[in-house]
C-alpha cells in the first residue's frame, strides 16, 4: 500500500480577489513523481505556491503526511516540504557549501549555528548529488546544470519527504536534463520522496513521471498514468494546438509531436467542436 504524502481536497485559491485555482483534488504518494503539465496560466505555479504556504488558500483542505496543513507553522512545513526552484533565482555570491547549508535552516537554533550533524548531512547531500568537488566554488561561477544540482543538494539537506519542483529542467541542455532527472529518480527511490514537478517538456513526462495531472484554466483536467492521460484528444484540447502521439519503440512511453498535417487535424477538431 502506497503512502499518501500530500492529499489535496477541493482546493480553491486566489490572488487579490481573482480566483486562480478551482476545486483541485490531488494525491501525491511516497516514491513517485507526479508531473503537473498544462498551458501557461493554468495555475501550476500557483498550486506549488499554495502548497508551500506562500499563498493562502480560500477553500478546501491540504493534508501533509496525514497532518492538516493549517496546523503547521513555517518551520514545521519546511521540515516536510522542500522547494526546488529554478537555478536563476540563486544568489551568486555564496559558495556551494554555504548554499546547501542554508537547507538546514528549519533545524538550526535562533543563532543559526550549524552543528556537527548539520555539516555531516550537508556533506552527504553534496556527495549524493555528485557536487562534493564544487563545495568551495561560488554558485555564480557554476554552469546551469551544476547550479540545479546545488538546489537538489539543498533540498536533500532540508531532509523533507516532499519535493515541489517548478520547471527544474527549463534552463538545462539535453545532457544535463537527462542527468538531472536520473539523479532525481535515484533520490526518490533511496529516500521514498514524493515529488510534484511542474514540467513543460511533455516527452520528459512520458519517460519519467509515474503519474501526470493536466491542468487547464485553474482546474485539474485529468490525472492518471502518462499513457492514459497524454492522449491526442486531451493535449489538443488543453493546449489548443493539434498534436500527434507516437509510442517509444522500447519503453512504450508516449511521445508527443506537433502535428504535421495541420489542415487535416483541424478538420477533426472542428468536427468535435474543439476549435472554431
Amino acid at each position: 500500500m502506497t503512502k499518501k504524502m500530500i492529499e489535496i481536497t477541493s482546493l480553491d485559491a486566489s490572488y487579490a480577489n481573482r480566483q486562480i485555482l478551482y476545486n483541485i483534488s490531488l494525491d501525491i504518494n511516497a516514491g513517485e513523481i507526479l508531473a503537473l503539465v498544462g498551458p501557461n496560466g493554468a495555475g501550476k505555479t500557483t498550486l506549488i505556491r499554495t502548497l508551500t504556504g506562500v499563498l493562502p488558500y480560500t477553500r478546501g483542505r491540504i493534508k501533509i503526511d496525514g497532518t492538516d496543513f493549517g496546523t503547521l507553522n513555517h518551520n514545521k512545513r519546511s521540515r516536510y516540504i522542500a522547494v526546488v526552484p529554478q537555478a536563476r533565482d540563486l544568489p551568486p555570491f555564496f559558495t556551494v557549501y554555504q548554499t546547501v547549508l542554508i537547507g538546514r535552516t528549519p533545524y538550526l537554533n535562533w543563532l543559526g549555528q550549524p552543528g556537527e550533524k548539520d555539516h555531516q548531512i550537508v556533506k552527504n547531500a553534496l556527495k549524493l548529488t555528485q557536487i562534493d568537488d564544487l563545495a568551495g566554488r561560488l554558485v555564480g561561477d557554476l554552469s546551469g546544470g551544476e547550479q540545479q544540482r546545488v538546489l537538489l543538494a539543498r533540498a536533500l539537506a532540508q531532509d523533507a519527504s516532499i519535493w515541489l519542483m517548478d520547471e527544474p529542467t527549463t534552463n538545462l541542455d539535453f545532457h544535463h536534463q537527462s542527468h538531472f532527472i536520473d539523479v532525481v529518480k535515484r533520490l526518490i527511490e533511496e529516500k521514498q520522496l514524493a515529488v510534484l514537478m511542474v514540467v513543460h517538456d511533455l516527452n520528459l513526462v512520458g519517460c519519467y513521471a509515474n503519474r501526470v495531472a493536466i491542468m487547464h484554466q485553474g482546474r485539474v483536467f485529468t490525472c492518471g498514468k502518462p499513457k492514459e492521460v497524454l492522449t491526442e484528444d486531451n493535449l489538443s484540447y488543453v493546449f489548443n494546438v493539434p498534436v500527434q502521439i507516437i509510442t517509444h519503440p522500447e519503453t512504450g512511453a508516449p511521445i508527443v509531436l506537433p502535428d504535421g498535417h495541420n489542415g487535416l487535424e483541424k478538420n477533426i477538431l472542428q468536427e468535435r467542436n474543439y476549435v472554431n
Partner: protein
Amino acid sequence: MKNTRNTYYICLIILFITFIASVGIGSVPISPMITVRLLTNQILGIGVIDDIPATMADILMKIRLPHAILMLLTGAALSGSGAAYQGLFRNPLADPFLIGVASGAGLGAVVAMSINWPTNLIGMYTIPLSAFVGAIITIFLVYQFSRVGKRLPMASLILAGVAISSFTNAITSLLMLQSKEEVHRALSWLFGGGAVSGWQPVLAMFPYLLIGAVCLVISGHSLNVLQFGEEQAQQLGLSVDKAKLLVIFAASLSTAAAVAFAGIIGFIGLIVPHLIRLLWGTDYRHLIPLSILGGGSTLLIADLLARTLFAPQILPVGIVTALTGAPFFLWILRRVKAEGT
C-alpha cells in the same frame, strides 16, 4: 572563503593599532608606549606613571580617549548597520546615509535637542530615542516609495533615499536656524559631521549600540537566508516578517545612536562591508561582526586624517569620509552595472 578566525585576528589587530594611534596623535603627541602605560594604569590600576606629566594624562583621559571611543563606536555602528541594510534590501549600495536613515535620525536628534538641550546624562539618553523614531519613520517612507510591487529596484531605493534625506535635512536646517545661538553653533558643527566631545555622549550611546549590535549579530543567519528572496526564505522555514523587523530595528537603532552624537557621517556603511565582502566573502554571520570591527578602525583613521591634515584646523570627519566614499560609491556602481545585477 578565507580563514575566518585569522580574519577576526587581523581586524582586531588593525583596530588596536588605529586606536592607539588615534589616542596618541594630536597637538600634544603621546607616544604609543606612554599611551599603553597610561591606559593600563588608569583603567586597570597597574604600573607607575610618575614620570609622565599630569597634563598628558588629563589630555588622554578627558579628551582623546572619549573622542576615540566615540569614533570607534560610531564607525562600528554605521558599518554594521550598513551591512545589515545591504542584506535586508539585497542592494549593495544601501548605506544608512544613502538611504536617508541617517538624515531621518539627525532630524529626530535635532528635534529633541532644540526642544531641550541636554544638560545631564539622563537628558542625553533621550536623544538617541528621538533619533530612532526619526530613523524608523524614514526607513518606512523610503521603503514605501521605492517599492515596485514586491521588488525593490536598486536605483529607486537610492533615489527615494536622496529625496527624503534632502527633505529631512531641510527641516533640520530650519529647526537649527530657529534655535538659540549656542545651540545653533553646536548643531551646525554636529550635522556637518563633527562630534560632541567628552564622556557623556559615549556613555549615552553605548547601551543603544550594544542592543543594536547584539541584534545585528544574531540576525546573521536570517540575512543569509533572505538573500534567496522572501519566498524561498519562507519555504526554508524562516519567519520572514519577524526576521526583517529585527534587522530594521537593530540597524536603525544603531544608526540613530551614532548620528545623535557623532553627526551625519556618510559612506562608512558602504565602504567597509564591501571591502570585507571582496577580501573575505559573503556570509552575514561573520560579515556583520567583521564590519563592526572594520568600521571602528576605518572611522578612527578618517578621524585621524580630519584632525591632522589641516592642523590646527579640525575638519568634520564627514568631509573625509565623503571625499573617499563618494568615488568608492561610483566604483561599486560601475562594478554592479558590469555584473548586470
